[in-house]
């Protein structure tokens, strides 16, 4: 894949998915209704061409997403923070991402290592860097920020101590409505605090137990989903007063174009030197008119959205436009049965 879109995730919103991007979209619903679960599975290589093929996925939106990230960070540097004791974890993350990208996309990225003298080439972003691994003075940014600016998706680093995970570092510019500046330093239970219903189902208790036992060389993944009006990546609480009003602009005529399903592919890796856990949150968006080109997804998403419990709809911010969207999707749902699994066929 050598052709990258030139598109925007703000202002004129020129973001769009090619047919190939639509086909590989990580549609998250395996049945016609949705409820929370500890839906963690091993992050093993998936089918060729799918978003699961490589540990870190780069797609046609890469260059434009990185441009948007740079803009967010320029406007608000607090989207990237690292408590001082996390420096070893930052280097672990840089190593993991660079080696992964270079191995998965050799036509785009090259990494040559001579002891701790590293030579990194990022062709799509026109970056070439020679630096000393472990010496932050030889990079233009801290290691996490350096590689985070070259990788799609948000990243957080969790320190494992006192039988919990502590989110002590992160680069977060494409979040679905949570604040890194506020949450940095919280533990797993605390930063998931505001999520309704899931706590009663002990979902987080079991997820934490699983993650505390996460092993080197055995990464895990799960999917999360929400919805966004306009393909805006930066839906942070910091800017909520700027983008919140978008939710009131949905009409029966513009659902196809404005309403987006937003899926997060979350990856979890145990890091070697720091014993920290790397958490990636990779965001994929698809507008309704693109989604319904896959008939199974059209039917299923109509049913999922229609039956979603109100507390969940509220928490995900869908309330204002849910009914309009359900109505629009109903045109594509003939009531026929849908096949199990998330795939398009």
């Amino acid at each position, binding site marked *: 894949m050598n052709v990258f879109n030139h598109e925007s995730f703000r202002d004129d919103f020129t973001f769009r998915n090619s047919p190939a991007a639509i086909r590989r979209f990580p549609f998250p619903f395996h049945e016609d209704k949705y409820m929370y679960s500890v839906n963690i599975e091993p992050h093993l290589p998936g089918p060729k061409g799918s978003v699961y093929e490589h540990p870190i996925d780069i797609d046609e939106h890469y260059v434009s997403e990185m441009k948007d990230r740079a803009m967010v960070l320029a406007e608000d540097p607090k989207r990237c923070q690292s408590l001082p*004791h*996390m420096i*070893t974890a930052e280097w672990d993350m840089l190593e993991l991402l660079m080696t992964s990208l270079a191995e998965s996309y050799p036509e785009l990225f090259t990494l040559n290592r001579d002891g701790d003298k590293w030579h990194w080439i990022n062709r799509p972003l026109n970056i070439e860097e020679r630096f000393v691994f472990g010496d932050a003075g030889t990079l233009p940014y801290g290691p996490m920020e350096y590689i985070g600016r070259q990788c799609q998706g948000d990243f957080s680093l969790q*320190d*494992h*101590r*006192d039988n919990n995970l502590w989110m002590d570092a992160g680069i977060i510019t494409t979040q679905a409505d949570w604040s890194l500046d506020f949450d940095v330093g919280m533990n797993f239970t605390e930063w998931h605090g505001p999520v309704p219903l899931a706590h009663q189902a002990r979902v987080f208790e079991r997820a934490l*137990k699983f993650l505390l*036992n996460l*092993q*080197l*060389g*055995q990464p895990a993944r799960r999917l999360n989903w929400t919805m966004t009006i306009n393909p805006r990546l930066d839906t942070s609480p910091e800017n909520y007063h700027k983008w919140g009003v978008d939710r009131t602009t949905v009409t029966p005529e513009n659902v196809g174009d404005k309403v987006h399903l937003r899926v997060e592919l979350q990856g979890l890796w145990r890091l*070697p*030197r*720091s*014993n920290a856990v790397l958490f990636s949150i990779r965001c994929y968006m698809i507008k309704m008119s693109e989604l319904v080109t896959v008939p199974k997804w059209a039917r299923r998403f109509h049913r999922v959205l229609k039956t979603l419990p109100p507390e969940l709809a509220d928490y995900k911010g869908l309330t204002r436009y849910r009914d309009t969207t359900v109505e629009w999707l109903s045109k594509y749902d003939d009531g026929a049965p849908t096949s199990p699994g998330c795939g398009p066929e």
Partner: protein
Amino acid sequence: MTATQLRPMRIAEIEPVADGIKRFRLVPTDGSPLLNYSAGSHIVVVMRDADGRMWRNPYSLMGPLGNPASYEISVLRVDESRGGSEFMHRLPVGAEVQITNPVNLFTINRQARKHLLVAGGIGITPLMSMLEELSSINADFELRYKVRSLSRGAYCQKLVERYGDRVKIYRSDRGEKLDLDRVLADQPLGTHLYVCGPKEMIDWALETARAEGWPEENLHSEQFGAPPAGNAFTVKLARSNREIRVGPQQSILEALEEHGVDAPFLCRGGACGQCETRVLARDGELKHNDHYLTDAERRSGDKIMICMSRVTGNSLTLDL
């Protein structure tokens, strides 16, 4: 489901480092790169003898850190009939074993202002990699190391050479006593304590720290220890409808593994919780030898850590 993948390794070097203690240097048989690991990590070494008897013993990785070409462990030969360390000591250079990937249940606290390390005997092994890490990040640290004698204490000279007056050795053959309460009282606010050694030593060190007003959050320890022996009994697996005999020197986990049951494990020392199993019925009382379950969980009799614990009667039925 076992905890990790197994990697084939070869013993590249063996060095006696003290009476009854040998250092083993292990290298991958296929030349593939070894994973980096965090200070305090251990591996589980899987060994088989000619008769097919298998041991799975955890050993701390001693360093070096930083893209290691080999993993180094130290093994104390323990005279008891479980035999794992005995078997290891008889292995020659070139022998092959398997290992798990590194696992860490004894990490340094990265926010500590200072790190006070206290070792007793073979308990020095996890602290070796901690010292290397702390030294490389220029942290403030100290080691107090209790040995029976210089001939029985591994690495005394090497530690003093490398870390100078940050290391203090206490030889009990010379009656040297570690005045731990005074040492603890003198530490700056924000110091964390890490203890490894025999159970009695760990208990004493932690109690002394508490008595000196150290909060629980600053106390860390790792206990080595084979699963304690007990009476033989039968374990019934409710789901697979099997009955397996557990010998007096064997843990439930080991008995299951011997019979081809792949039960979950991680640390094999009762600390991590991975092998927690539901108890459906029992004859006699549960003997909890782990450090993981709460008092309430132990009293309830619903759960057991199969890597360390036993039953006093004739049988135990598990949800496996």
